[in-house]
């Protein structure tokens, strides 16, 4: 067991802040790196130390393995938490961290490698008895890939084997679409992951994206902390996540969670991980992939279990055993998370840039706001468009939905277009209330989710407020007696 005294957080925005909070509570000092084009992160003022990292464009600094390790060593840290995204699932990074004598807060490099590659992960899952969808791996025989893909049947999902996070994925619904889907997916995968190898699998229509939070320690214990439903997605990216998954039969839930634990245990999984599955309308579930890191939507699990996952991560990284057994895990109430993104959801989810001129943070019982920005922060195309996570807990799903609606209306980030009103419309949709969530939700209800037209009265009021907020309006000096006479007419 090694106590972590000083933690280097190789990340930014809201996850860096969130890790700082837990570390501080545990008495661990924190160092958060800073890039000179990204100086407004809230973590920078709350961490104990900051250190400058370099790269052009800015994102390169967060992918610079030697640079980050050097910064961690220079500041006397004994561990690195990678957050999510960036290098969190990069086995080379994990190895380099260990080689530098630092603790990597995450699973060991070989496990990252195993699960990081879609194809090896799938094979491993199949070997553990995990159900998977019909698929074709290009690497097996590139010349027959297209033919084997065709044989799977339609609709078909073509994706980069080394990819994740929704990038490099294309759906082909008809034979004619396949060639184009293959070329686009290949180009995207090449660019994002440096690897254009492809993978094709049967696309389940109206699938539900259900994932299980698992946790392993160095003593071989593996538990699950329940499932999360992440079906409300656009462009394969999650917008709304919740726990527990609505309308999921207990039997099915248990089977998925148990299968996830079995898979993690077989992989000798250590630290936090998520096993992602798709669930068909008939109640069958299929392994999708395993993410060997903390996920964006982990707060919903924290809110229904009352556990601090980052704390568990740090304890496990220190070599401690998990402080609880499966039987100790209690679930209470319902939690929902909405990702607040800088995009114009009603104009085709087009990303927006600008500056957060006015920040309004929602508060209230059961409301948690993980902010990645401070007032005055510029929002650029350099980084991810997620500005904050709004997470709400309630005794039941109805209460959670109700609290989330209010919280969304109170969320203010003026100066850049955000998607809070769009999310609110989803939360108000009766199908969402009924729990009819699947990955086709947003597309299917697109027309109903269109924004209401502003009434004339609303527009006039907004104009009046806009004028009141405008500085230095040219004023007309009216002399007396006309000023006193006002709008007199004879």
């Amino acid at each position, binding site marked *: 067991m090694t106590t972590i005294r000083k933690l280097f957080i190789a990340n930014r925005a809201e996850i860096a802040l969130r890790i700082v909070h837990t570390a501080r509570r545990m008495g661990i000092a924190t160092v958060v790196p800073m890039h000179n084009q990204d100086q407004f992160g809230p973590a920078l003022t709350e961490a104990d130390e900051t250190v400058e990292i370099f790269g052009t464009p800015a994102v390169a600094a967060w992918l610079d393995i030697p640079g980050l390790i050097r910064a961690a060593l220079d500041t006397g840290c004994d561990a690195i938490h990678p957050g999510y995204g960036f290098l969190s699932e990069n086995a080379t990074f994990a190895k380099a961290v260990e080689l530098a004598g630092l603790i990597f807060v995450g699973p060991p490099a070989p496990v990252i490698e195993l699960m990081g590659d879609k194809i090896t992960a799938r094979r491993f899952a199949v070997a553990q008895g995990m159900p998977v969808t019909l698929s074709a791996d290009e690497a097996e025989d590139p010349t027959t890939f297209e033919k084997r893909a065709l044989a799977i049947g339609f609709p078909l999902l073509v994706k980069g084997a080394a990819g994740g996070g929704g990038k490099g994925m294309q759906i082909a619904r008809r034979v004619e679409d396949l060639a184009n889907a293959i070329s686009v997916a290949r180009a995207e995968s090449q660019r994002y992951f440096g690897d254009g190898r492809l993978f094709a699998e049967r696309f389940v229509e109206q699938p539900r994206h259900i994932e299980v939070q698992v946790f392993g320690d160095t003593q071989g214990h593996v538990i699950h902390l329940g499932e999360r439903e992440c079906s409300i997605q656009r462009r394969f990216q999650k917008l709304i996540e919740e726990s527990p998954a609505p309308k999921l039969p207990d039997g099915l839930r248990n089977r998925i969670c148990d299968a996830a634990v079995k898979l993690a245990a077989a992989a000798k999984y250590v630290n936090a991980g998520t096993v992602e599955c798709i669930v068909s309308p008939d109640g069958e579930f299929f392994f999708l992939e395993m993410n060997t890191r903390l996920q964006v939507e982990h707060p919903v699990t924290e809110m229904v279990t009352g556990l601090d996952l980052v704390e568990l991560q740090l304890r496990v990284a220190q070599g401690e055993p998990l402080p609880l057994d499966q039987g100790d895990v209690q679930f209470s109430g319902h939690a929902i998370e909405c990702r607040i993104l800088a995009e114009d959801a009603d104009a085709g989810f087009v990303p927006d840039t600008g500056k957060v001129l006015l920040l309004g943070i929602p508060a209230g019982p059961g409301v948690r706001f993980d902010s990645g920005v401070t007032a005055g922060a510029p929002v650029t*195309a350099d980084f991810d468009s997620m500005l904050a996570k709004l997470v709400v807990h309630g005794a039941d799903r109805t209460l959670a939905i109700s609290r989330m609606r209010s919280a969304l209306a*109170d969320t203010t980030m003026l100066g850049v277009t955000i998607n809070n009103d769009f999310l609110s419309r989803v939360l108000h949709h009766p199908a969402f209330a009924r729990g009819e969530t699947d990955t086709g939700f947003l597309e299917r209800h697109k027309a109903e989710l269109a924004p209401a037209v502003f009434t004339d009265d609303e527009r006039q*009021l*907004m104009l009046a407020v806009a004028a009141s*907020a405008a500085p230095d309006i040219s*004023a007309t000096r009216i002399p007396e007696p006309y000023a006193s006479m006002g709008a007199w007419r004879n």
Partner: protein
Amino acid sequence: MAQLIAKMITLQFSDMPDQRHQVQLRTNAVYVNGRPLQVRKAAAGSFTGMLDGRTVRLRAVAHGDTLYVQLRGRGVRIDRVDPTRARAAATPGGAGASHAPMPGVVISLLVAAGQQVKAGDDLLVIESMKLQMTISASLDGEVVELPLAVGQTFQRNDILVRLQTCGDTA
């Protein structure tokens, strides 16, 4: 003794650029196109007003000539206009210019300056925040200028490519 009666401002909604609204701030009320409304400033950036007989909260902030207002969680952008400026200002670049729909980076250039293209031909590929887009020609003509290089970043509305129809004097 001059007394201030009215501060006047001309505004337009960014989603309705054809309509201009005259707003006057007078001591007793705010007049929008001649209609008086009561608006109260609650705190920095916070205001209250009345809608359908109920009090509503609004938030607003100014940035130069742009005003951002939020009502019931929905944000709008309102621009201040100079009423003496012509309404239909010619788009810089003219009809043959393609403007970036969002900020991003140039992925690849599929044509070169001087090349003849037809309406619908692919000209360049851009990408921003996980979204890739191909920009195609809006008319038949010649590629006059590709102002950006592969890997170069741009802002929303920046010109990506300039075309001219054959016979134009640009």
